């Protein structure tokens, strides 16, 4: 093989590699829209926040709203329920973390950190989705008077904390903003 042919061969290889890379970039660029289309669309994202009116929520009453396709429990707890929740020692909890999106990720799961904040201790807003495998727990049921998930027998207390059963975590508290005393925004 002459020297000239060798150079030629080398150039072809460079071109081949560059073209191959170009092709790979093209395939990647085409693949992205086909993956991205599976993500929530604009109309679903627009519903990522909801506003609810809690003015009619008397102590002992609960309402359920739908947020991102999942139930949100908003409960105005009775003083007895709050007392019962406050009386639990952190050491007795299966999950000692508050799981409250409005607080630091390692905030302890005491009752104040589970509720809706200063002056609104009786109010609790949490996702009604069992942290085990996603069923909706029943209210005012179970061994601790809070919530009970019938699917696999997880018991939550009156502050929505897991006390018994297979669920690993407390019911999560979504991001909540009080627009006024009676109007809250979730998300």
């Amino acid at each position: 093989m002459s020297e000239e042919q060798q150079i030629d061969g080398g150039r072809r290889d460079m071109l081949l590699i560059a073209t191959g890379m170009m092709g790979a970039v093209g395939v990647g660029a085409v693949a992205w829209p086909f993956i991205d289309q599976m993500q929530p669309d604009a109309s679903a994202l627009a519903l990522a926040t909801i506003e609810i009116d809690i003015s009619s929520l008397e102590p002992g009453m609960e309402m359920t709203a739908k947020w991102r396709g999942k139930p949100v429990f908003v409960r105005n707890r009775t003083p007895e329920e709050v007392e019962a929740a406050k009386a639990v020692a952190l050491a007795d909890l299966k999950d000692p973390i508050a799981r409250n999106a409005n607080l630091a990720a390692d905030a302890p799961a005491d009752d104040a950190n589970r509720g809706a904040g200063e002056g609104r201790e009786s109010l609790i807003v949490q996702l009604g989705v069992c942290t085990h495998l996603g069923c909706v727990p029943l209210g005012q049921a179970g061994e601790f008077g809070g919530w009970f998930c019938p699917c696999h027998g997880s018991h939550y207390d009156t502050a929505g904390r897991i006390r018994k059963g297979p669920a690993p975590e407390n019911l999560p508290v979504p991001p909540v903003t009080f627009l006024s005393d009676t109007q809250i925004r979730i998300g």
Partner: protein
Amino acid sequence: MISKLKALAAAIVMGLSVSGAAQAAGDYPINKPRHVDWTFAGPFGHYDEQQLQRGLKVYKEVCSSCHAISRVAFRTLADLGYSEEQIKALAAEYTVMDGPNADGEMFERPAIPSDRWPAPYANKEAAQAANNGAYPPDFSLLAKARAVERGFPWFVFDIFTMYAELGPDYIYSLMTGYTDEIPEHYADQIAEGTYFNPYFKGGPALAMPNILSDDLISYDDGTPATVDQMAQDVAAFMMWAAEPKLEERKETGFRVMVFLAVFAGMVYLLKRRVFASVAH
């Protein structure tokens, strides 16, 4: 062979254009739409936010009492340069039906950004009943649903000139096309309750009267509200409503075309090299 083909093509072009002209005489619209120099035309076309805001105002204050635009959600008005607060305030001007509530009743509430634009009539039948039997079409897709046939050979040239604004041109021409000077030939074809317009594609006259008049509304940006201006603005707004992703489309398109051209160039060089040593 190529020259033979060209000669054939030329003969056909001539034959067809002559006969095409003769045939078009009886068809509607009487006049072909006039062309507007739209900002969204061409490979780098983009919407003019100010124009869309003006068009929205025309729609809101003039058209919306009869025409719905029900596929457009308030949230998408961010495309027009409005802030979230402005969109919320605009949405709240409208009421939408929601429910059922805890008592099982449907209720009305102010619209929120995720809602779509409520229609002026409850349904198509109600719209017809209120408008002498003529249904005022929904604006959401009208700029893509209205086009006047271009005819041979124009439809061939359109590929190369990238002419894709038939809809807004039609709407603009229709809005500015009303005239009292009705040619004799059509005078006796104007039905009761319809209005002559030589740009209407469905016949010599349509059920919508000439709504626009100079200074009918006042623009927030101080642009003089002439009929011509309002017609252009509302047509641009309708184009946005029908094709909200136009800018994204053209921007992506430019990148794709450049990529493909470079890639094709490289493959061509590779191909030349591969075939350089063999006769083929």
